[in-house]
């Protein structure tokens, strides 16, 4: 998720970096809370992933079963706004006479031209702010150049080796007899614009007798990802809105001291939002104010099915985030290990 408004702010910030004062006077202490991990913190909620948390999460691996939780990243998947992702194959050594040595070695490689917030991806600390104020009261105008940020980049994050908890909202809504679905979904899904409340999340946890622990990563299954899987046929519908958490649910998740919140949607939060004049407010609440990561376009259906079959909604959350220096986010590979 990166609205064009943010791109526009980003452009303004690039100007700032070279001396304009449009945002330079912003007092970030008034706009963004301080990090509980101190004034120099650039790590955010991954501070919560201590060795004890990782060790406890390892107990979730009982059978060694690995469940994919990422979508393939390829041309045609739904993308936000003007984003793009494109691969170009270099295969020159397959040309006659171009192989190397007597062993006729050939090679191929790719050029991957892509924006970072595409497909299954992580929103980092530098993704979302208020004006030029980002996580931990960082006046971002001072910390950007033409290529990247010099604060809050992905290189500061700890590994995401912790417990994952899937909350099957489709099942919650079905059991409460309030599932309003969308006819384009081949499997059950929750209609866009549906506000997922704290009570809904708590009902989903109760369903599997789970209590959230500090350091958990919460993954919400809405079924909306079914439209992502139908790319490109349902891209316009997928992009037009989504079910997701509202502000009250976000507040509750923050109180649970989670590390990240993910979903099978492109913004995790309900779209259209609860207040039409607020833009992606849950992003501000989670990322800007609390350093809690957002993971978008997560493949959730397989883990939801696994939880339903086994009666267990917890797993070891394995996710690789490249140490992209100064980057605001990146596509990720996620596996849930049980």
């Amino acid at each position, binding site marked *: 998720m990166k*609205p*064009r*408004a943010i791109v*526009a702010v980003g452009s303004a910030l690039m100007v700032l970096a070279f001396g304009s004062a449009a945002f330079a006077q912003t007092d970030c202490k008034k706009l963004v809370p301080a990090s509980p991990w101190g004034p120099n913190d650039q790590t955010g909620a991954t501070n919560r992933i201590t060795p004890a948390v990782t060790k406890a999460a390892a107990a979730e691996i009982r059978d060694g079963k690995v469940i994919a939780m990422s979508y393939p990243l390829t041309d045609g998947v*739904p*993308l*936000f*706004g*003007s984003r793009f992702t494109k691969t170009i194959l270099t295969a020159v050594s397959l040309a006659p006479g171009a192989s190397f040595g007597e062993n006729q070695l050939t090679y191929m490689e790719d050029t991957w031209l892509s924006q970072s917030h595409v497909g299954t991806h992580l929103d980092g600390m530098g993704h979302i702010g208020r004006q030029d104020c980002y996580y931990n009261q960082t006046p971002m105008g001072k910390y950007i150049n033409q290529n990247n940020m010099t604060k809050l980049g992905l290189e500061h994050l700890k590994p995401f080796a912790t417990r994952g908890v899937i909350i099957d909202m489709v099942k919650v809504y079905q059991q409460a007899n309030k599932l309003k679905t969308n006819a384009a979904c081949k499997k059950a899904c929750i209609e866009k*614009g*549906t*506000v997922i409340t704290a009570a809904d999340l708590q009902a989903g946890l109760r369903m599997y007798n789970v209590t959230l622990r500090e350091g958990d990563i919460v993954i919400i299954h809405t079924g909306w990802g079914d439209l992502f899987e139908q790319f490109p046929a349902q891209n*316009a519908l*997928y*992009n*037009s*809105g989504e079910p997701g958490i*509202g502000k009250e649910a976000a507040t509750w998740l923050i109180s649970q001291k989670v590390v990240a919140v993910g979903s099978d949607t*492109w913004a995790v939060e309900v*779209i*259209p*939002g*609860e207040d*039409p*004049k*607020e*833009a*992606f407010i849950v992003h501000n609440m989670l990322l800007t104010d609390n350093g809690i990561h957002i993971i978008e376009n997560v493949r959730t259906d397989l883990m939801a099915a696994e939880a339903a079959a086994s009666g267990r909604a917890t797993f070891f959350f394995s996710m690789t985030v490249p140490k992209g220096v100064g980057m605001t986010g990146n596509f990720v590979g996620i596996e849930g290990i049980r």
Partner: protein
Amino acid sequence: MVALALAPAFAPASAQRTFVIAFANLTEEPGVTLEGTGFTGREIRESVALAARGLPVEMVYYDNQRDDARALANAEAAIARKVDLYIQYHRGAANAAVGEKLRAAGVKVLAVNAPVPGAPLYTADNEAAGRLAGEALAQFAARAWRGQSQMAAAIVGPVSASAERVPERVQGVTRALGQRLPAVRVTVIDTKGNPAQVGPLAGKFIGAHPTGKLLLAATDDATALALKAAVEQAGRVQDAAIVSHGVDRSIHGGMNDRKEIDPANRASIVIGSVAFYLDRYGYDLLPLAMRMLRGDAVPARVTTRHLLVTAANVYVEYPPSDMN
């Protein structure tokens, strides 16, 4: 969005009774736009559904189909459904009978844009909107064309569409221009609801003023875009400023749309449009309805808070928060 400060402080839904509210829409006929703007009935109904999400209400929807008999039948169906409050959006003689039937059945009524006798009315304020547009043009002229002696103004669109109260819009523009720029002659150009006529009629006006500056008020966004094309075709982009009414999606757009009013398009001669917010009616109507249901007094007339939307505030008023 409402001119009056409405108290939205509701207790948690779980602690309250759930009310049944009916919304009878003017029409949901595809492609039919309402109130002399680019908004459709579907957009209005969807705004009601979105606004209902956080309230202890069950919504029931009807389509009056711009038909008196249908409007009466819908009211009767709502009475049989035992709704608590009925939001009536209809223009026609049936409004009086609808109001009587509902009141006799103990159902509270809230009227939209056309009065129902005895019921509070929520309505657009076309005159006020027109004044905002006129003042925006005058301010632009004072800022950008100071000292320019040759200036002409035109108000373009279905200016005689009295059912949609477009003449009030025209009156507002005329008054504002008259107060701020008394020396400027204002020409009213009636396209009679035919967008294809905007180009030829505006072309004549532009041609009749080969020198000097042109202040153009469009009564709706579609007309504004057609006016812009006419100005471009005449090679007069440097001489013209356009202010519109509506701020429908055609002009503020989604993420990937080409947006006429856009921070990245600050040089557009469409310098702004006065918002009518039909796509947010629900966020005004339902808080009013809740006050009525709780027995609180509500004003007899509540108007939309119109606002001039420009490249400077369009992302505040309409954050492009879908991916399309």
